[in-house]
């Protein structure tokens, strides 16, 4: 049994893959992780998606089969090489695997990667489940080599993370014939070359269209109930089969270029044609432009999954039939929400607690990663988050574009270690170069935390966990032009030091960088200490410790008391000792000194002493 991501990795290996490069991002992350398990290929974490695609292009231009993997927002970053290399093409097969987060479980937007196929004139394949992901990965490599083009394999969350049975095969040996051919008229994309390649790109697309018309990946499944015929792709197909087992279905595996002749013929066999596509009205628009009558987004939503509970009532309504109503046992919206939160003992907790105390004096420019959770209760310590790296660039804009109302506010940018390496370096360079006034917090937890702990050039390990050169953040930041006296490295569990450094640097009208240096609690380098407990009699119910947002601190009892003629809410707390990592952050917030370590620290490291 394999997930779609595992199936892609297995198929790529079987296809003779030589090199894979990716930047982690849910739901695509496991593809590269899985590829490190296979021998005889090179799997690498790239610092960002543009880099990943360009590395893969280099390998494919050299004649080897290569793969780049990313999530949907990553393609925006990789768009530059994608659009250009479409002209020059590749020699060894190159498959760009993109995982669309349909339903937005962990992304800043829900975008439809199929557009990139149209935009870049690159074919798109859309598997529906793990077995198809396996088969189409192989087909994608073959198509890529046959037409000398990058091929996009578009997955969605429901392919990446769905496990089903997969039948596997053997590895084909990697390409060994050929190699790089000197041909500046192809590989050097100056305007004259690009102009010469444009007609070739158009010819290729025409040939791909013919390929699509005859592709075994585009299949008609006959059905007995011809009132509605469905044109669909990806997991949409499974939803259709589940909802309407008797309906005729045209399933598009090679969905771009679309096989209009097949679709036209299919339309002639059914009463009405409905396009079921996740997420945008893309194929439907193309069909209408081709004069093929159909409906789709008029009756179906343009975001989220098109699951049976969406499809069944929509089609019933479309056919003028009674819409089935299902009475649910309980209204789940009545149960409190359980949003993701930072972990017990997370090194970011102290940073956000500190920022929340300075809330009125700062505008906080945020970034993508675990620390985006700092926008949530109880810290509420982020003002903006747009995309990876935007914390630093937007901080410059927030500084230079400020209006009188914000004259007294400092600008603070918060970014993580992997994120800084992904897109932050340029932003910091730009901030210094343009004489911005912002304090930059680099929360270095020595891993890519949000996606589950991958490595990057700051961790000293490669994708295989083997030792790798480790970037020196302080030297790097200095080289970007930040003055040495404006760079600080701080233990984020020592909040008074953090608070003072932050206040001091906010007051200085130039770029400062504060690096926090404690590891993510989910990685091996993290060290736990003896847990803390609350002395019940000493707890005054002030609730300060709750403001750290540590999930191990629980309310034991609430009380309302009258103080100075006002009602005051008290919350007496307990600590969940099984969760507590002994970081001691909460002790620094406790006025009455009611939080004590349960036993002497097992290790007398500097850390433990520092945490008291």
């Amino acid at each position, binding site marked *: 049994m394999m997930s779609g991501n595992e199936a892609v990795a297995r198929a790529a290996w079987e296809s003779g893959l030589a090199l894979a490069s990716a930047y982690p991002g849910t739901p695509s992350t496991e593809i590269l992780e899985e590829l490190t398990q296979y021998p005889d290929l090179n799997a690498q974490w790239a610092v960002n998606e543009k880099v990943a695609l360009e590395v893969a292009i280099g390998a494919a231009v050299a004649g080897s089969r290569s793969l780049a993997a990313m999530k949907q927002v990553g393609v925006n970053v990789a768009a530059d090489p994608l659009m250009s290399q479409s002209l020059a093409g590749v020699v060894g097969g190159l498959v760009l695997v993109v995982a669309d987060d349909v339903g937005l479980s962990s992304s800043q937007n829900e975008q439809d990667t199929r557009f990139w196929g149209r935009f870049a004139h690159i074919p798109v394949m859309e598997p529906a489940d793990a077995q198809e992901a396996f088969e189409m990965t192989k087909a994608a490599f073959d198509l890529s080599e046959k037409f000398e083009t990058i091929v996009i394999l578009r997955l969605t969350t429901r392919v990446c993370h*769905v496990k089903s*049975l997969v039948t596997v095969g053997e590895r084909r040996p990697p390409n060994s014939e050929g190699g790089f051919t000197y041909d500046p008229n192809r590989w050097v994309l100056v305007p004259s070359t690009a102009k010469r390649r444009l007609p070739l790109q158009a010819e290729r697309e025409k040939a791909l269209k013919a390929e699509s018309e005859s592709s075994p990946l585009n299949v008609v499944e006959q059905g007995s109930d011809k009132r509605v015929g469905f044109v669909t792709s990806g997991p949409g197909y499974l939803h259709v089969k589940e909802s309407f087992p008797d309906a005729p279905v045209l399933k598009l595996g090679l969905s771009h270029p679309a096989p209009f002749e097949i679709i036209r013929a299919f339309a002639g066999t059914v009463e009405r044609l409905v396009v079921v596509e996740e997420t945008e009205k893309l194929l439907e628009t193309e069909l209408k432009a081709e004069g093929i009558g159909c409906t789709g987004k008029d009756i179906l939503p343009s975001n989220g999954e098109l699951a049976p509970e969406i499809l069944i009532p929509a089609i019933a309504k479309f056919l003028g039939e009674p819409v089935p109503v299902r009475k649910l046992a*309980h*209204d789940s919206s009545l149960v409190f929400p359980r949003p993701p*939160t930072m972990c017990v003992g997370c090194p970011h907790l102290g940073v956000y607690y500190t920022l929340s105390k300075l809330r009125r004096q700062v505008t906080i420019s945020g970034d993508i990663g675990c620390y985006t959770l700092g926008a949530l*209760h109880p810290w509420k310590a982020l003002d903006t988050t747009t995309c990876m790296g935007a914390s630093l660039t937007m901080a410059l804009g927030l500084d230079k574009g400020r209006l009188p109302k914000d004259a007294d506010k400092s600008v603070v940018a918060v970014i993580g270690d992997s994120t800084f390496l992904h897109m932050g370096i340029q932003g910091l360079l730009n901030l210094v170069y343009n004489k911005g006034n912002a304090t930059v917090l680099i929360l270095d937890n020595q891993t890519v935390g949000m996606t589950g702990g991958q490595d990057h050039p700051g961790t000293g390990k490669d994708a295989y966990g083997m030792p790798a050169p480790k970037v020196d953040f302080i030297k790097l930041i200095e080289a970007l032009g930040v003055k040495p006296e404006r760079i600080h490295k701080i233990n984020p569990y020592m909040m008074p030091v953090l608070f003072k450094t932050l206040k001091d640097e906010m007051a200085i009208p130039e770029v400062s960088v504060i690096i926090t240096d404690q590891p993510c609690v989910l990685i091996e380098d993290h060290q736990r200490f003896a847990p803390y407990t609350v002395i019940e009699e000493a707890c005054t119910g002030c609730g300060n410790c709750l403001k750290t*947002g540590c999930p191990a*601190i629980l309310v034991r009892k609430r009380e309302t008391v009258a103080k100075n003629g006002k009602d005051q809410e008290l919350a007496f*707390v307990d600590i969940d000792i099984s969760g507590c990592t002994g970081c001691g952050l909460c002790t620094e917030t406790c006025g009455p000194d009611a939080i004590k370590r349960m036993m002497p620290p097992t290790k007398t490291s500097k850390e433990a002493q520092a945490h008291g």
Partner: protein
Amino acid sequence: MAESAITNVLLCGIGGQGVLTASEILAEAAIAAGHDVKKTEVAGMAQRGGVVTSHLRFGPKIFSPAIPPGQADVLLAFELAEGLRWISHLKPSGIALVNTMRVIPPVVSTGLFSYPVDPLADIRASGTRMVPIDAGGIAKELGNARLVNSVMLGAVAGALPFAPDSVKECLVKRFSAKKPELGVLNAQAFEAGRAAAAAGAKAA
């Protein structure tokens, strides 16, 4: 394809409780029983203390991996309030096995929301069959809080269309591969869960 030939099991809980591992073990047992199987979950931020669900479907041929609301045959809830949150996914004729352990998130401990007073009563009021299991207590008695998922697997094993022992076999195989004594311990947890479910069903 008759709908009754397909079994839908919805597992729910919180990141870190072993929901996904339990789901994988049930999937293995279903494969061993000769079924086509699909299993899906939304991972990602779930590991940051959020809600985790795993949809497991098996039968002669499975298309969609997700279980629509009101279509689960079995709900296996690893946490009390999560049991209430997902009870709507259960068929009226389905059965819910609910761990009575409460896990309080920061939004509740900081006073933003309140935890339901009596989720068990609310679940009962929905009219579905429900068996409460003190999986947290049982796991602690066996000396390891992380055994909750094996206790819950024992509890659910009797409600599936294949022999409970085949689930136990998959469970033991998985943990014995790491350490033989882990296999023994998890088998104990499994049996304790099975007994608790049998006793709970009688009481209900």
